[in-house]
């Protein structure tokens, strides 16, 4: 399962690669990364068919995660990728907006990687 992680913090990349070391080695998951909403859209433009799931931060400079979500829901509906939103602001309003715009799930920082792993494995099945 190919997962695109969108976050403006570059160190998220080695973190995910290490956290999912075993899964990656066993080809259960495959990660790609984008540092901004714009970069994520450009990536999807090239190879949206490969991507099954998108994990996106909400607060990013430039295009916000919510905007990215709207664009994805608008432009890529066949087949629709799963989108999980991640934010440091786990408030009602953010949650509601994310769900309204069609997010499949909503996670708050700091990320519980065990929980995330569970969720991803559930999605994979």
């Amino acid at each position, binding site marked *: 399962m190919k997962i695109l992680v969108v976050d403006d*913090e570059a*160190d998220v990349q*080695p*973190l995910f690669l*290490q*956290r999912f*070391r075993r899964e990656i080695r066993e080809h259960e998951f495959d990660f790609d990364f984008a540092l901004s909403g714009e970069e994520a859209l450009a990536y999807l433009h090239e190879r949206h068919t490969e991507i099954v799931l998108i994990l996106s931060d909400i*607060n990013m*400079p*430039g*295009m*916000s995660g*919510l*905007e990215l979500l709207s664009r994805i829901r608008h432009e890529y509906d066949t087949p629709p990728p799963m989108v999980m939103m991640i934010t*440091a*602001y786990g*408030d009602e*309003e*953010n949650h509601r*907006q994310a769900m309204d715009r069609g997010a499949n799930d909503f996670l708050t*920082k*700091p*990320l519980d*990687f065990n929980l995330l792993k569970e969720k991803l494995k559930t999605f994979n099945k």
Partner: protein
Amino acid sequence: MGFFYYLAAFIIIRRLNKRLKGSSLYPKWHSLLNVASVIAILLFFGIHAAFNDGVVDLAGAALLAGMAYYADKEEDLKDWRILFEPTYPLIGVGVITGLIELLVNSFYEKYDTYFQIAVTAAFVWIFARWAATKKQEEQLKVSIERRAELEVLVKERTIELQKQKTELEETLKELKTTQSQLIQSEKMASLGELTAGIAHEIQNPLNFVNNFSDVSAELIDEMEEELNKGDTAEALAIAADIKQNLEKIRHHGQRADGIVKGMLQHSRASSNVKEPTNINKLADEYLRLAYHGLRAKDKSFNADLQTSFDESLPLVEMVPQDIGRVLLNLFNNAFYAIQKKQLIAGPDFKPSVSIITAKKGKSIEILVKDNGLGIPDNIKDKILQPFFTTKPTGEGTGLGLSLSYDIVVKAHNGKIDVNSIEGEFTEFKITIPV
């Protein structure tokens, strides 16, 4: 007519005696003068009996001249010279009359009436002069009294003025204290606005610290497994990862450290120490703090933050926490402006704040631009005034831009330019000489 000279001498001596009464000189001169006055009269009778009129006149003139000369030389009598001076005409007249009587008696006999008139006039002159002198003295006395009164008044006024000066100095001191308190409370107010932003900014590196240390612990378990299996190559690869993670932990720890230090610096009273500063880094840091600060208060708020940093900017000598405050203030204002516009504008409004740095000649420019409400023309010249604010009471101190002006213009010899169209955009340009 010869009697007039001796009479004048008598009267002068008597008058002097009278004037001296009450002074410290009186005991010494009292009897002397009494005797002298009698001698003057006796002298007349003596000379008159023995000699002709011409000699009487000359001797009378000589007596007066001698008295005037004596008064002039005698230290005790120097204040009373004015009594003797009016006798000069009489002395002159006496000498001329006496000489003419003695030398050309026929001429005298012919015109004796004129000589008598001259002697009488010179005699009267003495009393006229005395009267005039007395009047002058009275005027002098009045003016001396007046002067004394004025001096008292001036003294009173001086004391009053000095009191006022002290009061004003006190007030000035109080004002200065109040001013520094206001500056400090403005700092604390902006720090309050920052708190949420700071919390967010610290949370991110802390998450990394926690995550990388967790994952490193897992990696060590895996490394042990690999070593037990004898796969040294894989174990070494894992060790390299762990090493990299430790560097990341250190990096993010320092990042959090830097944020806390910056926060402390911001709240501390300005040290006014200029140091070479990377403006791009400073601007980026405060932009994030301001954004996350507002973001934490208003969850629905989102803005497009555009940064265009001139990477070739040199380090510029400045007080970083002061310029940081200026930038923070400009960012907060920009966010406030787009936030307010968002409330009235349609859904198509894309709020945006941009910061641009550039080097222009011998100065650097920092441009903070927003597409918010803009500034109405009628308040453009007021925005830098202390206590001017368009925010509701309690929300703004009205000191932000005024303090920014002081920091940029007074402390850094720079300038602040404002360009805005109401409803369209606002652009603040800070220029600081390198």
